[in-house]
């Protein structure tokens, strides 16, 4: 689960910066072997980027490769390749896209071959498939795996037992494995400095999210939001670049808000906010802009989304804390959205609907992802019951174009918007 790395149609200065950051990261990866730098593959939820950065290790996030492949129309061929190799039609398409990409030469989004991993850091956070994914990759790459089992917050509470379990694993297994790979001990001051930068970036990101309370919202918190979380969900949390990016983004958003402007979209600035929506579930990447336009056309702005919280949930108060480095990394992992029990997820969406004064909410149930999707129809009923706000339910997939039924989704959304309109006019809903 995760976020695209700025191939955005929007061209704000922050977006330009993000583009440069990504290009530089892929250059570093391309040169990693020659320069003797070690490469760690890991996942977005529960990523330990500050820790990797403090040890000079370079992260690769296979989820991001998969979604990039989806956006570049490569995923169908990769998935077919994996299915030919015996991977079931029924399982998460991110995994198959990644395996297919590997079997096709592991060419990354910038056209260069990605280096093989020196270590697989299995941050087992909020998704069962992660475990299988890296077991599969281990069979392919024959490299070591460091497992970090993050317990599930079934009751929405981090207990001391959970925290200490994660911290102990970090202390006894994950940090030593990374130190061995880096060939040097972890400098705790360096880690703390990175966590402090993360914290400042998180403050700015939360300000960006909260700007959507304003009418019109200056951001789209889903389609636009997936770009905003790019740096903080991926290889940059804790870097000076990420800190600067979020400062810049916040100031752009605040300027738009001051001018009373809507979000930036692939077709320029949005005008005339008609509906304010909350979205639960990941987007479809293969038809991302088409999907977005189904909302833009209707004047629908997404004021908050849960998908943009999978790599870290900051707007309920959590911040990385340089004074408690390992504990706060543990709390970060424990708090990622898909690591929260369904009741907590429902409470959070309810809060978004109320706080952001949403007219409705949409659930995009993706075929790939039981972590997100199992139980969403109950969440829908529960939210309608609690808030009186109507929800829409659509089904698609992340990167398998076979499961993006454009006409069907469009029809559903159109009827939904008509229903919202009728309600607004006081007619039958």
């Amino acid at each position, binding site marked *: 689960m995760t976020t695209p790395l700025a191939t955005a149609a929007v061209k704000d200065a922050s977006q330009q910066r993000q583009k440069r950051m990504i290009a530089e990261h892929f250059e570093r990866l391309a040169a990693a072997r020659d320069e003797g730098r070690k490469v760690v593959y890991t996942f977005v939820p529960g990523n330990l980027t500050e820790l990797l950065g403090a040890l000079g290790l370079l992260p690769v996030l296979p989820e991001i490769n998969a979604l990039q492949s989806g956006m570049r129309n490569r995923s169908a061929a990769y998935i077919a390749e994996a299915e030919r190799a*015996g991977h*079931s039609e029924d399982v998460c398409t991110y995994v198959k896209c990644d395996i297919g990409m590997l079997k096709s030469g592991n060419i990354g989004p910038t056209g260069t071959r990605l280096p093989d991993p020196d270590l697989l850091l299995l941050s087992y956070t909020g998704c069962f498939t992660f*475990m*299988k994914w890296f077991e599969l990759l281990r*069979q392919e790459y024959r490299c070591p795996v460091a*497992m970090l089992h993050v317990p599930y917050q079934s009751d929405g509470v981090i207990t001391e037992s959970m925290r200490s379990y994660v911290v102990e694993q970090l202390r006894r297994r994950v940090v030593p494995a990374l130190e061995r790979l880096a060939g040097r001990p972890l400098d705790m001051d360096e880690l703390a400095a990175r966590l402090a930068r993360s914290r400042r970036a998180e403050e700015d990101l939360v300000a960006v999210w909260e700007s959507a309370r304003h009418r019109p919202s200056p951001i789209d918190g889903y389609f636009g939001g997936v770009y905003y979380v790019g740096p903080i969900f991926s290889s940059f949390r804790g870097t000076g670049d990420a800190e600067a990016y979020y400062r810049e983004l916040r100031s752009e958003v605040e300027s738009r808000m001051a001018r009373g402007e809507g979000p930036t979209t692939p077709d320029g600035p949005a005008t005339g906010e008609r509906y304010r929506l909350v979205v639960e579930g990941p987007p479809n990447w293969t038809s991302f802009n088409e999907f977005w336009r189904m909302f833009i056309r209707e004047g629908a702005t997404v004021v908050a989304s849960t998908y943009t919280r999978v790599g870290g949930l900051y707007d309920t108060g959590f911040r990385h804390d340089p004074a408690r480095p390992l504990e706060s990394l543990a709390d970060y992992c424990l708090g990622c959205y898909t690591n929260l029990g369904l009741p907590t997820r429902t409470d959070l969406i309810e809060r978004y609907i109320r706080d952001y004064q949403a007219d409705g909410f949409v659930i995009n149930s993706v075929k790939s992802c*039981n972590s997100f999707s*199992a139980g969403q129809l109950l969440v829908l009923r529960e939210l309608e019951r609690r808030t009186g706000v109507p929800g829409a339910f659509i089904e698609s997939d992340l990167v398998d174009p076979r499961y993006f039924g454009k006409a069907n989704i469009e029809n559903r959304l159109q009827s939904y918007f008509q229903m919202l309109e009728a309600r607004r006019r006081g007619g039958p809903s």
Partner: protein
Amino acid sequence: MAGPLGDCEARLARARALVEDRRLDTVRAWKAGHPGGLAIGHMPVYVPRPMLEAQGCLAVALFGGGDQVDIIRGDSYFQSYICHIPRSTIELALTGDLEPLDGVLFPSICDVIRNLGGMWKLLFPDRYSDYLDLPQDFDPEVGGAFYVRELGRIAGELERRGARPLEPGALREAIARENRRRAALEAMDALRAREPWRVRASEAYLIARAGAALPAQEHATLLEEFLAAAALREVRYRDNVRVVLVGAFCEQPPFELVLTLERAGCDIIHDDLQLGLRAIDGEIRVPEGADPLEALARAYLEQGTAMASRYIGEGEKGVALVRRVCDAAADGVVFAAASFCDPALLDQPMLERALEGAGIPFTSFKFAENTGQFQVIREQAGAFSDAVKLWGKES
């Protein structure tokens, strides 16, 4: 208790009645005989049942509705692409069939069971339900310590709801009863592997699954009596291919599917249909003076069977399966995964690769618990069985 020794059919009939007891009448009867006792359901695959027994609870393994339940309401709670067991489990809960349960545990085997646990809390906020996070770190001081704390927490929750406090003496005895059940199961597995015509897989399945809502002791007795009776019965030798059936089974296949494989000429000499009962390999040892809760946790860490929902750690995927096939002198493997089952289907390519490396033939298909058509499976299994026989003759 079962009837006179020597009568397999009586035990099988009892087992079948227990397996088909969807409305949990036996649980109702147990509760009537144990006033104040709690009946605690649990989803597949594994929860440490001796802990529940030590607290005076009846552990009830839940396997969905099989092919006997019409899904009327359950479907409206789930998206299109998902396995079947959560639908039928919700259906049973909404129709009141799970009413006798005082609580349900959801172990951490996959995201569907995990989220089903959350749905339970939303749907039945007044009933006890809990998530059991089984450790994926197998260091006794790290994952083990966490697991002991988890078990202690759940024991406390049960106690608050009227169960007996968890006492070491009672736990030690419950573990001993579980060991007896385990030994009887192992004896049945060994007999099946030796003489598959004496104990058919379909029979072994019924007898094993009958323990879902029985105290370990009672199940052990059923197993032992069945074995004693099977040893004496008249049988006819069959020259079938010997297969291991693999499905990381949580959702159970229809009984007819097991019969179909048998009819297609496959002797299933080992299976993971009742995976939870086999999740710990061998006896749970409680050394003199040791804390039995720690021993129970340690058994999970150190003797855990290789299965899809358990991290492989430093091990090698498929090694356990290859060993199983070799030890049991099996001719091949039949994979039967529940449709949309992440653990089974994500594991399968790794297991297949290991089998290919070892030159072991396999075939695979998918099922749903309410599958009603077996012709294709029968043909596929028949073709597999013929091919394996042919290779066997050639080699």
